[in-house]
């Protein structure tokens, strides 16, 4: 899984890299607008968002599907002065920007910040409208890749991405296979009012933060076997899942606030929302987190109850789960959700094995 990046105490850099960095720093420091400059990638927590998660491009997508690429590009160019409407990842991006401004107040010289990158396989001419839209909302997005049709996966690594959000589940799956935390974003049916002062991130446990090893037991041997197994192996840490590194990155930034006595006022809060039950299978999860040196602010054990109502109360900016059943439940009650296409959960729907078409 993707490694956590260097802390600022680590030395060694490439000379060419240093020159590029120094020039960019000078460029931004000399701007009259006082725009915050983007952080140094090797120390930042890099979040890559696609154009369709950042903005609502449903109408434009339909033009692409019905009328083809040329008409789609022409349409976007015709409308390039019209800002696009916010998409599923928009509130999340704004929350990241808020954390950055708090971090800059406490640590004005630090490069340990969120770095938001637009990663799209849109054509560069469509990019003009995207840039205009980003300008309109004054989002802190200074880095982007517009690959004109090529897969963005290679670029994700080149930008040292810690989390990738897209509407395209194939790209997300590819990213996860390459060891990059990634999820497919879904808009909510309604809109819960989200915090403007605190980034709130909710994670499912199995097959998201942890591997799917226990999920496999449930699916193949049933709940009773699962409970016995978890009790027996309570003290054996679970293997890590695709989003573990992202939780780790959030924890690193949280500790910076704690170090300045801002624990109660920390602008990042993390939640574990799991179908496990506290009594029978919860201990192993908490002990695993502890063994990794990770903290989660609130752990909510639902013992199989639906996640939707609880998430409605928590109001996270994003909720990660590996099972579409939970994603749909969350969506219906106003939570912006992100599907993590990993593990055995992909082969099941609502507890039943999905019939695979016979292989030719």
């Amino acid at each position, binding site marked *: 899984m993707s490694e956590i990046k260097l802390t600022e105490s680590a030395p060694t850099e490439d000379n060419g890299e240093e020159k590029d960095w120094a020039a960019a720093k000078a460029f931004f420091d000399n701007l009259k607008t006082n725009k915050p*400059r983007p952080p140094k990638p090797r120390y930042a927590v890099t979040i890559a968002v696609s154009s369709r998660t950042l903005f609502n491009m449903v109408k434009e997508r339909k033009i692409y599907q019905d009328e083809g690429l040329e008409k789609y590009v022409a349409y976007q160019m015709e409308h390039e002065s019209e800002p696009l409407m916010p998409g599923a990842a928009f509130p999340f991006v704004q929350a990241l920007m808020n954390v950055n401004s708090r971090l800059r107040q406490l640590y004005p010289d630090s490069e340990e910040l969120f770095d938001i990158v637009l990663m799209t396989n849109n054509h*560069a001419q469509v990019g003009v409208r995207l840039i205009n839209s980003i300008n309109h909302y004054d989002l802190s997005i200074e880095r982007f890749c517009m690959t004109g049709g090529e897969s963005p996966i290679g*670029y994700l690594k080149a930008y040292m991405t810690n989390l990738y959000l897209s509407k395209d589940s194939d790209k997300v799956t590819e990213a996860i296979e390459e060891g990059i935390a990634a999820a497919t974003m879904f808009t909510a049916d309604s809109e819960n009012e989200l915090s403007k002062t605190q980034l709130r991130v909710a994670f499912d446990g199995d097959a998201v933060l942890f591997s799917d090893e226990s999920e496999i037991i449930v699916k193949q041997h049933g709940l009773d076997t699962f409970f016995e197994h978890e009790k027996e192996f309570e003290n054996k840490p679970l293997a890590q899942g695709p989003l573990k590194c992202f939780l780790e990155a959030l924890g690193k930034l949280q500790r910076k606030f704690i170090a300045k006595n801002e624990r109660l006022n920390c602008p990042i809060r993390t939640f574990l929302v799991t179908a496990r039950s506290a009594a029978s299978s919860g201990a192993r999860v908490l002990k695993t987190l502890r063994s990794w040196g990770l903290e989660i602010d609130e752990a909510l054990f639902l013992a199989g109850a639906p996640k939707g109502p609880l998430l409605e109360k928590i109001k996270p900016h994003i909720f990660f789960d590996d099972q579409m059943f939970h994603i749909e439940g969350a969506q219906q009650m106003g939570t912006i959700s992100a599907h993590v296409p990993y593990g055995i959960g992909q082969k099941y729907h609502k507890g039943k094995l999905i019939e695979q078409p016979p292989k030719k």
Partner: protein
Amino acid sequence: MVSTIQNTDVKQKEADRAVVVAVTSRAVFDCGVDDGDEVCEVGVAFPLLQVLQRVNERLEISRFCFSSEEDFTESLLKNNVHLFLTTDRDEAAQASQKGVFSALLNEKVASSEQLRVVFCEDAVIRTDTEPPSASQDAAQSFWAQLGEMRRRFGVLDSPLSLLLLTSRGGRESCGAALQTLRSRGLNMDEAYCLAGAPRSPILSLLRPHFLLINHLED
């Protein structure tokens, strides 16, 4: 002393309608230790020539120019070269000073299916703020022809792809560069804004055939 040999197997193109590209022989063939009779290995520019062929159906090297180091720029100017390609940074700088638009050949493996041309930020921005020099006029003329060539192909499946790479400024610089290039008839296909992020991992993914940078100290 310059001697020019015409390739008589090939029909010479009309000089004012064709894009004349000069490539140093050292880039086309890698001769290593000169054994006299041995056939040379293919050099760095070979994939480029193959891909130009795709763009152009039949790429014919119509003229061979052999010149000594001191006056190769004279021969470039005499032959009305629009673009001079070399892997040697000093050669490119020299030619550029004399008003010949020059670019560095990418020494790493480049695509042989699509001609990929990368415009680096400075190449775009500088020509707006400084008074036009001879090399900038050469640049403009080359770009105009490149833009026209690109327009002959559709959005998809084009054998020619134009890429913008801005390494220092943020999205506003890149956005401005996109619009400036568009106003000169060059619609970029891909755009990458680094804002100080390391350049080499991105360049190795872009697989450009050549990079257009006016400011050759980069």
